[in-house]
């Protein structure tokens, strides 16, 4: 029997009787990170990284949760479990599972580049690696964060010259904090949507240092937005809520902006391919560095990535999970809306 099986409730370790990122309620859930498709409500017990817990509680309310630092093993029914940085968002972790000399690693979502917030992705040697593949096609090749940040700042400065407010569309958990770090270097007039605000507060309360932001409320005077930067989640894009920023320009921050058609579909004035996922090269590097004999590929372009690995001497198989959509982990407005509304507690 495999150390980790693919069941209808999620990734299951029968030797330890626990699940990793289950999509149906279970007794024991090890959580890679706090995005809603990986961390779902209803589990009796949660195990996650210390920095994941605050947002997990914000989203899921009063839950029973145990936290770990990276590389701090615990035993669940004699199965050794430890977490390693995944570099995806704050607190995001890979889960290493060891039993009878066999090692499996579940990547969760990850990126290779160090964004200065989420910890540096650490390759973990293992026999079997379960990898995401959100951007698992060679057309996805990211510019460095430094270059993209320069593009964003240049765009914001241009908007300021034209007397426009810059509305940055970024996921409230992860992307928003990166964007904040980027623009805090050129302006201190940063306003955020309620969903971004709530995550911001949870992170501050947990001791993270973040640049100061102001929450947008119905009372905020419109004149305050002139030439300022707004950070808002995708669910706010195109809603009447945006009207108060007029005149404004919209910049969408997402790996999907790599493709012109996606940008045009979003009606964005600017698109920045700033992603919290590994690009094609990143995925290949990660897979190789684990030294794994067998790679299971989940959510994303799993069939292409898996086939490529097989053709290049790495045994691989695709696995269907309930993470993300088929290949649009975060592209779907519907998924993001649910996620954001949860974080916002309905306060959009």
């Amino acid at each position, binding site marked *: 029997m495999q150390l980790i099986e693919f069941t209808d409730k999620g990734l299951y370790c029968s030797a330890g009787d626990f699940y990793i990122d289950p999509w149906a309620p279970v007794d024991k859930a090890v959580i890679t990170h706090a995005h809603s498709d990986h961390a779902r409500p209803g589990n009796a017990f949660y195990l996650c990284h210390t920095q994941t817990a605050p947002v997990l509680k914000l989203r899921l309310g009063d839950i029973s949760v145990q936290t770990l630092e990276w590389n701090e093993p615990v035993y669940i029914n004699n199965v050794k479990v430890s977490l390693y940085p995944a570099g995806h968002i704050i607190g995001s972790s890979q889960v290493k599972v060891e039993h009878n000399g066999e090692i499996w690693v579940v990547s969760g979502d990850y990126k290779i580049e160090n964004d200065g917030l989420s910890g540096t992705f650490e390759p973990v040697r293992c026999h079997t690696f379960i990898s995401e593949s959100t951007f698992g096609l*060679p*057309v996805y090749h990211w510019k460095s964060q430094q270059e993209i940040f320069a593009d964003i700042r240049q765009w914001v400065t241009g908007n300021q010259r034209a007397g426009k407010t810059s509305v940055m569309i970024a996921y409230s958990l992860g992307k928003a904090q990166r964007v904040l770090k980027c623009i805090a270097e050129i302006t201190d007039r940063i306003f955020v949507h309620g969903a971004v605000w709530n995550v911001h507060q949870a992170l501050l309360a947990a001791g993270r240092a973040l640049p100061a932001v102001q929450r947008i409320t119905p009372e905020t005077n419109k004149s305050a937005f002139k030439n300022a930067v707004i950070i808002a989640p995708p669910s706010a894009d195109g809603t009447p809520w945006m009207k108060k920023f007029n005149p404004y320009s919209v910049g969408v921050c997402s790996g999907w902006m790599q493709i012109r058609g996606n940008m*045009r579909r979003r009606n964005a004035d600017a698109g920045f391919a700033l992603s919290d996922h590994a690009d094609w090269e990143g995925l290949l590097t990660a897979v190789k560095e684990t030294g794994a004999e067998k790679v299971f590929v989940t959510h994303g372009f799993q069939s292409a990535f898996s086939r490529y690995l097989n053709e290049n001497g790495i045994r691989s198989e695709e696995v269907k999970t309930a993470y993300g959509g*088929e290949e649009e982990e975060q592209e779907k407005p519907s998924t993001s809306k649910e996620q954001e509304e949860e974080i916002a507690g309905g306060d959009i």
Partner: protein
Amino acid sequence: MKTFALLIAQLGASTKTNEKLDALAEYFATAADPDKVWVIALFSGRRPKRVISSAFLQLWCMEAANLPAWLFEECYHTVGDLGETIALLLPPANRERSDTSLSSVISRLMTVEKEEERVKKAFVMDTWMQLDKDERFVFNKLLTGNFRIGVSQKTIVNALAKTIQLEPSVIAHRISGNWDPATTSFETLLSEKSSAADHSKPYPFYLAYAIDGEVSAIGNEEEWQAEWKWDGIRGQLIKRNHEIFVWSRGEELMTEKFPEYHALKNMLPEGLVLDGEIIPSIENKPLPFALLQTRIGRKNVTGKNLREAPIAFFAYDVLEYNGNDFRGQPLSARRVLLEEIVSAVNHPVLIISPVIEFTSWDQLENIRSGSRDMGAEGIMLKRKSSAYQVGRRVGDWWKWKVDPLVIDAVMVYAQKGHGRRSNLYTDYTFAVKDGDRLVSFTKAYSGLTDKEFAQVDAFVKKNSLEKFGPVRTVKPELVFEIAFEGIAASNRHKSGVALRFPRINRWRRDKKPDEINTLEDLKKLLQAYGK
């Protein structure tokens, strides 16, 4: 290439006509003349000759990026655009690179036309390595000859009008017709002299909007002339300098495709431009558009083509007579002149598009319901006092189409779309019932809102059964009403029918797959309207 790539990026990112106009005007104000000529040419459908096949481009890209063919294919189907796929897959450009102008890249491209493959390859690979991602994209677009970027002729004309002192309608006329961007200078293109010297030059077409709501809202019956709205190719028939020219609305010179018109050469008066419909017809009766399609795709017209789909010209307006521009005259006067011209020529290839007599809107509505029996797709309404204007204008010309034919069908295949539908399943194939089996009969790509497309896309991703290359077979569950303008017999389709302008009319969430129409229903429509 840098400024041109920037222009394309600006036009692509912008959703507002005014922003596009500003970007183009800025370009026309600052770019070099030879580059401007090419931009006008490219955006009005005059592309450089295709000298390198896209199969080669694909091959060379795979080689440069070290990728297997299947992975390239996979990327292409996700990105939905070949030029962009290649731009994204190529390895990073050389560090030291120089900027070459648009016109010089194109002229280099034309010099390699007759060279052997090795030389072409060296040119393309070399150029790729000099360009960044956005520049590669536009370079690839030049190579593959496909520049659809959502800029109308009107926008280009208005942008030019901002930088040169000419009326937009004058500019529209001068940049139309038969000119070669490789040998035409910006000055010559827009000068009066060369424009007069070009005998083939058509006038910009006057286009109608569709009537939305009650027809009576446009005014009193007696102010309007009604004609059938023919389903052919809108065209201009020109006789100047003892030669004959036929232009399509897409500004394609089609004279050679329709030898029938040569019979008119010695019969038409000199200095004449007629507006009308290019349409297959036997004994003054129009034949289905499907027959015209058998003609337009061909390089050489055969005797069989000429017998089975003989082309006529249904004239409905006269724009130039005796070498004089008549577009400013009221339609009523132009009509009198047109009738005189057509009856004087008296040849079966030149037919006058008849005026429909009517006294009330109700009566006309009744007549309109018989459009299909006339081989028409509805009625045109033109104000009797109207001048022949430039481009699509509200007010004086209206099209009033009959309701489309509809049939309920289930979606069976899906494929990812192109352009702004990249990486979304938006191209669907539909089937009707035939006993227990489903028979696919049409594809449709439009008619849903972005939100509905997102929902169907999510359904496809969850419910796809098999994958054939880019095509997914989908659980036959979603029912849609398919609308179309016409139906014809076809042996190229399993169902035996081909539809004209199929599109999704609405999503029938209220219907189950077993409530859809049958092949029998389709065949009945074919019998009634397929002739």
